[in-house]
């Protein structure tokens, strides 16, 4: 399953969906909002946006790349948009494989590819302004190019 969602990701349900009798390993990667601190300020939440439907298609392409490279029984990638509060999941990748090696490798591959090719962007909203991650454009004086 490849999906872009607006609300919380049901991580447990995604893992349950991956359980199969022909697979002996399920690797799960969950990316969550981390509270960074700098200059006396801290991250309050992250906010994500996407170019759809290109982003949906790119997630599915990553799934196809994984199936071409590793023996996997199940791949799901779900990315959340909008505001994601500290500790909450922004992305979840679940890979089931007969053995653990491909499951670990494929889940790592998926998150790295997401960060390379999927048109999704995040904004860190700090207590003193915001920054577009990757562009370093925003309203935070110390950490970004001012608008």
């Amino acid at each position, binding site marked *: 399953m490849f999906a872009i969602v607006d609300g919380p990701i049901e991580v447990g349900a995604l893992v349950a969906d991956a359980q199969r009798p022909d697979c002996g390993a399920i690797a799960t990667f969950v990316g969550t909002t981390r509270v960074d601190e700098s200059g006396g300020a801290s991250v309050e939440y992250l906010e994500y946006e*996407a*170019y759809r439907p290109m982003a949906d298609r790119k997630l599915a392409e990553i799934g196809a790349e994984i199936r071409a490279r590793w023996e996997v029984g199940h791949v799901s990638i779900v990315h959340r948009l909008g505001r994601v509060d500290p500790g909450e999941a922004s992305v979840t990748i679940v890979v089931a494989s007969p053995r653990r090696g491909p499951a670990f490798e494929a889940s790592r591959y998926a998150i790295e590819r*997401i960060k390379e090719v999927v*048109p999704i*962007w*995040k904004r860190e909203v700090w207590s003193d302004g915001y920054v*577009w991650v*990757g562009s370093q*454009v925003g309203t935070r004086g110390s950490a970004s190019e001012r608008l």
Partner: protein
Amino acid sequence: MIKVLFFGAAADRAGTRETELDVRDGATLAEVWKLIVERYAHLAPMRDTLAFAVNGEYARGEDTVSPGDEVAVLPPVSGG
């Protein structure tokens, strides 16, 4: 006319998320970019960081557009 979409930091700098441009049939993306910065000068410093998509697929400066196409201006992606 083509539709131009802006995302992330590019939308911030352009001050809009969407516009339309009148371009000749067969214009290259490089030519489209010139028209974009004529209208949104604040985007110019971002040029080297940007990628482009035409109709939902990555495209390069020498690729061409036709009336009705959708061009997206994509800052460095930062999902995950």
